[in-house]
């Protein structure tokens, strides 16, 4: 049984913490609350006298204190992680237990989809790589950035610098000093730049955007570059069913979609990015600019009718090959786009949409006039909060978990989809 399947989805409301300012230790201040995925715990960095830092979880302070603590994040399986420094060295602490290994710096905590594996970027003695559950890559690099881990957490990749570069050495740079390392092992091929490495769903293959010269953009899969040369290209994505690789590419001043180095969508867009396949691989969608300043979503190359100045957060459903996205008028007046239709509501801010497992329902947190709530299928929950975290559906998709803060308390509400009526 997965962690999500173990959550309490009994309909009703509970207060998980009735005083967010309460802590078992005297503190100087508490930082932003983070709520666990199941909504049962609320955690904050607590600054203690000293100065020292620890985590307060439902008002109970961890036993361990640190010189610094930042970037608290719950793993998908509900463990609380935080990046910590003690005696000048950095590591990652999980549920009050720090990794034994320490590093010059640790950042960018990442999790496998199920949460069983925790990884983070590390720097040790000026070299860069990954640490998995405390175990670092065998090979570290002069630089490593744009990190990504596979869905199962068994692999990680990053763009790595494989040749040294003297100050202002433009020649060596243009000869190529970057590659992609997977589990610490760099591809044989070296490029001027590599960007946006991405794993396929099985975690076996990696694709990245590359630049072979200042003007020659393309895509490399497992180190092998496409033949095609493009004026520009954004990050690639794998088709989960076929393994084909799709990337937006620019030709003759317009953007199209290349799949396995052949033009699948003709270059006729002013912009094209954030492409995403449906999990069955049958559909490909991307955020598209159809005319200057007019954005929408295009599915299999066909743009939706409604356009907006800005479109973000393209999100495919886990089943049913549906797509949702957010639209805004320059970060105001947010709307939700779902399968080409525009929901009625308009919001001051909207957060990333979340699908039910069967793809039948869509939920998200929204804000209006300083108050937040959860909207499901266009209908708002009839109660507003100071802050709402991402909603979650029960495995059968009939119930919605609301995690929210209001009146200095942390609330946990399970409501049926039918309760969203606003």
């Amino acid at each position, binding site marked *: 049984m997965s962690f999500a399947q173990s959550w309490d989805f009994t309909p009703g409301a509970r207060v998980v913490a009735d005083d967010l300012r309460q802590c078992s230790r005297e503190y*100087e*201040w508490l*930082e*932003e609350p983070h709520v666990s995925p199941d909504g049962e715990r609320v955690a904050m960095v607590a*600054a203690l006298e000293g*100065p020292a830092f620890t985590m307060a979880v439902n008002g109970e302070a961890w036993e361990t204190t640190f010189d*610094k603590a*930042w*970037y608290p994040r719950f793993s998908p399986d509900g463990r609380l992680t935080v990046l910590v420094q003690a005696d000048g060295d950095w590591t990652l602490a999980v549920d009050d237990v720090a990794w034994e290994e320490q590093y*010059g*710096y640790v*950042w*960018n905590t990442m999790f496998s989809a199920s949460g069983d594996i925790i990884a983070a*970027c590390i*720097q040790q003695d000026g070299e*860069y790589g990954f640490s998995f559950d405390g175990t670092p890559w065998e090979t570290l690099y002069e*630089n490593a*950035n744009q990190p990504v881990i596979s869905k199962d957490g068994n692999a990680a990749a990053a763009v790595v*610098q494989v040749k040294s570069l003297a*100050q*202002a*050495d*433009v*020649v060596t*740079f*243009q000869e190529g000093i*970057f590659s992609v390392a997977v589990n610490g092992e760099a591809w044989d091929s070296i490029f*001027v*730049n590599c*960007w946006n490495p991405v794993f396929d769903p099985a975690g076996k293959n990696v694709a990245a955007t590359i*630049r072979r010269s*200042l*003007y020659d*953009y393309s895509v490399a899969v497992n180190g092998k570059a496409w033949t095609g040369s493009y*004026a*520009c290209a954004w990050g690639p994505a794998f088709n989960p069913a076929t393994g084909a690789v799709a990337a937006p590419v*620019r030709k*003759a*001043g317009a953007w199209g979609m290349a799949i396995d180095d052949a033009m699948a969508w003709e270059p006729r867009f*002013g*912009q094209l*990015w954030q492409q995403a396949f449906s999990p069955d691989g049958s559909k490909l969608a991307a955020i598209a*600019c159809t005319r*200057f*300043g007019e*954005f929408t979503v295009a599915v299999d190359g066909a743009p939706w009718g409604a356009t907006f*100045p*800005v479109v*973000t957060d393209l999100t495919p459903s886990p089943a049913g090959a549906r797509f949702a996205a957010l639209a*805004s008028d*320059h*970060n105001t007046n947010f709307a939700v786009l779902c399968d080409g239709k525009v929901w009625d509501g308009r919001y001051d*801010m909207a*957060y990333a949409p979340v699908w039910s497992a069967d793809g039948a329902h869509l939920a998200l947190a929204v804000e209006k006039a300083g108050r937040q709530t959860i909207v499901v299928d266009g209908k708002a929950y009839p109660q507003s909060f100071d*802050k709402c975290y991402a909603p979650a559906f029960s495995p059968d998709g009939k119930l919605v978990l609301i995690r929210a803060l209001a009146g200095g308390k942390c609330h946990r509400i399970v409501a049926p989809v039918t309760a969203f009526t606003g």
Partner: protein
Amino acid sequence: MKTIADRLIEDEGLRRGVGRLTPEKIQKVFKELVAGECGARMKTYMETCVRCGMCAKACHYYMSHKDPSYTPVAKVSQTMWRLFDADGKVDPEVIYQCAQVAYTECNLCRRCIHYCPLGIDTGYIISVVRRLCHKLGVTPQYIQDTAHSHSATMNQMWVKDDEWPDTLQWQEEEAREEFPGLRIPLDVEGADFMYSVIAPEPKFRTQLIYQAAAIFHAAGVSWTMPATPGWDNSNMAMFTGDSEIMARVERAHYEAAQRLRVKRIVMGECGHAFRAVYDVANRWLGWKWHPVPVVHSVEFFWELIQQGRIKLTHKFAEPVTIHDPCNVIRGRGLMEKLREVVHFLCDNVVEMTPNREHNYCCCAGGGVINCGPPFKNVRIVGNSIKAEQLKATGVHWCIAPCHNCHGGLDDIISKFDLNMHTKFLGDLIYELMEKPE
């Protein structure tokens, strides 16, 4: 009349670049550029200039050297007209000359637009010359290195992913000695604004981050900085002509703000970054306006003062003058707000003449200072008019809300023994404000 050929300066990047060219290759790239990227705007400018020379006195290079080959129209005649006249088929050495003019003798300050009876934007024409030079691989070494840095790290100064949050945490720790409880909030989703800076701040000018944090702390505002790339709002790729990298950098900047769900972006005191974020790169990406509202520090400080969030213990007593940075004054029209902020802070303000949208450029902007040591002397001598302008104020303090302006002004202050010092608005606010216990 002298020409650019009489004052060529050796630069490794330019020399190596032209060594790979042939007239045929230049022509091919030029014709592709004109056909693919230059529309009615370029054609209109090419056909409407009446060679009246009214632009001459607009240019600080001309006003400093009094050499007609430095006038805006001469810069165009030595570059774009020459290329059009030859249908792009020119000797590689001509491209060297074009590059030196475009990258090091024009700050893209756009002052000359105000003097052209036909409104020709010489800055645009010179930007296209730079785009051509980029496509031909003929760019000055030092600014090209910054464009490389942008491409590899999404920041201008090769700052690595750990160095950014580590620096902020160091500044936060230092500031807590003075302001217990002060935070530099990293990656706080839902904050009112994301504060972005240029890479020289974490690299060399960390006190500016300290001061900004102190001001925001005193003002009690809700803010955050991204823990990931996208924090650097500068964009030297815009000035090398590498539009593709310019866009990639800007996309990272805006996506950081979108990921954090902030209401807007507040930018530090930088002019060129504002131009990239507010006007140029956002439009290359397809947005008509900015996808997340962008506010320059001048405007943000003005808001804080209007809202009574900044209170002073005293005002700066010594006379000061104001330098108007091109990109936020001619580019955004913040001249009056800048003055209101300065008058709030200072008792005695002596205006330069001319000022506001007619102010002379610092001669560092447009990427010129980033072209590095080979061109430094020309840049400084090329702005004696600015030195005269500063000297005429008779003051010892010059307020300039722009990083590049500080670089350019400090150089001419030193060269011409002006006995002046430059200050950011943040320097003054931090110095003068009531500090919370």
